[in-house]
């Protein structure tokens, strides 16, 4: 009991500290220099939308000090696996700081880690600012997104295992956090899984659907906090989620499903191969692709709009004055943030809904006429 209280206290403390310190990062500073022009704001937003290798709160412009904590970098280079803390890059994101690990020379450039080619000592760029003598490495680092996912996973495990323990203790009605979580679980089961997959077969897919629903939702909500997470706006993350769905429905497809997909009954013989190609492409490529792009685009756009509105206070300062522009940016950003709270739920719902719809299509047994 005491430990639980202690944990809650720490959690609230950490969240409060994070939100205070991180506001500076979102609105004003880029590591090392102030953000004042439209170009800088654009760069800053672009930088935020990307994944990053350290957890950066803010930079003190006068002293040039960075407030952040490093995250572990784990990369697979040509010379084997290298691990070190991201603080080794000293917050450099332009390929200036070279980290030498054995024979491998590593630099960080626009949130990506590159390995310099044999013999090169500095990064050379072409006209488009692409490095010419370095190439990307396989990056398994605990980046900010991975950190966010781990945090989400931990939160889910804590919250839902507490609910599960409550039932085991013999409470038929949950207590505490379970009171909020139980209706959500029932909602996913009764309004998403059952109607789409069917009463008989839904149970098998509940593990995936529930996990994905809460995973996406919590990550979306984390993205709305000033911590600067943008996990569901990483295309790799949404792609992975979509591929999971695709793999699940393709592997649980019933005989009827494959028959209807590959050799559609009831249509002229000559159309059947064409339909088979269309259906196959639809199930293997288009449906997962629509899933991944929908989530990615919605969350990225949300972050982009919120940050742009916050940046209004800088871009509109000259035409409206500091007070008006700040007021406007506050009101608009608040408005969009409220909408984003809805979108955070909506996107989690849509992803789960469509996943269960596709699974439902795949497991359906047709009655033959």
């Amino acid at each position, binding site marked *: 009991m005491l430990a639980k209280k202690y944990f809650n206290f720490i959690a609230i403390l950490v969240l409060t500290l994070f939100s205070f310190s991180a506001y500076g990062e979102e609105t004003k500073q880029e590591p090392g220099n102030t953000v004042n022009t439209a170009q800088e704001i654009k760069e800053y937003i672009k930088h935020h939308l990307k*994944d990053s290798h350290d957890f950066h709160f803010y930079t003190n412009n006068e002293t040039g000090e960075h407030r952040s904590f490093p995250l572990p970098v784990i990369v697979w280079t040509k010379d084997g696996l290298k691990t070190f803390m991201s603080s080794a890059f000293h917050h450099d994101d332009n390929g200036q700081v070279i980290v030498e690990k054995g024979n491998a020379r590593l630099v960080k450039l626009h949130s*990506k880690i590159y390995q310099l080619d044999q013999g090169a000592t500095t990064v050379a760029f072409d006209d488009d600012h692409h490095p010419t003598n370095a190439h990307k490495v396989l990056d398994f680092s605990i980046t900010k997104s991975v950190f966010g996912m781990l945090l989400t996973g931990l939160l889910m495990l804590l919250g839902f295992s507490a609910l599960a323990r409550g039932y085991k203790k013999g409470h038929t009605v949950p207590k505490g956090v379970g009171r909020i979580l139980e209706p959500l679980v029932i909602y996913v089961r009764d309004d998403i899984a059952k109607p789409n997959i069917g009463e008989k077969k839904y149970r098998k897919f509940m*593990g995936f659907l*529930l996990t994905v629903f809460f995973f996406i939702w919590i990550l979306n909500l984390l993205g709305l906090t000033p911590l600067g997470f943008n996990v569901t706006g990483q295309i790799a993350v949404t792609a992975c989620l979509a591929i999971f769905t695709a793999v699940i429905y393709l592997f649980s497809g019933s005989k009827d499903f494959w028959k209807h997909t590959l050799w559609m009954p009831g249509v002229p013989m000559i159309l059947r191969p064409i339909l088979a190609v269309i259906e196959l492409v639809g199930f293997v490529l288009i449906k997962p692709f629509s899933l991944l792009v929908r989530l990615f685009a919605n969350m990225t756009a949300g972050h982009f709009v919120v940050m742009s509105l916050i940046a209004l206070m800088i871009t509109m300062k000259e035409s409206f004055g500091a007070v008006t522009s700040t007021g406007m940016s506050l009101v608009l950003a608040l408005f969009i943030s409220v909408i984003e709270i809805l979108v955070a739920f909506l996107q989690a719902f849509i992803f789960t809904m469509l996943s269960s719809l596709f699974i439902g299509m795949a497991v359906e047994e047709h009655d033959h006429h």
Partner: protein
Amino acid sequence: METLLNDFSVGLFFMQGIILIILILLMRKFAWKPILDALQTREDGIQNALDSAENAKLEMQNLQADNEKLLKEARAEREAMLKEGRELKNKMIDDAKAEAQAQANTMIAQAQAAIESEKKSAMADLKNHVAGLSIEIAEKVVRQELANKDKQLELVESMLGDAKLN
């Protein structure tokens, strides 16, 4: 599209995959399975309770109907018994009456017959007596007549007086 592809991090994809698989497995074991089971049990329990309540209600209704039927039967039976009793009573009274009547009739008839025979014998006696008396008177009259006419009348007179006294 190029930036999108450039932003696609294979490492992140890989990490996400591993995290998701582990998370799904852990959540399934420690959260979803117990939660869904508990919910199922609870819902089944509620359904059962509702069903049994419904059954109990039906049973109650049946019982009530039975009770009413029993009551009705009992009432009908009582009615029938009362009716039977009344009939029996009437019949007994009638029978008793008829028997009494019959007995009275026979007794009356016997009495009448006895009276008749008594009367007959009494009449016969009376006749005999009157005949004897008449003869006696006639005898005395005849005897006196021969002696005195007055005396004869006197005799008849006294004779008659005797007969009156008798």
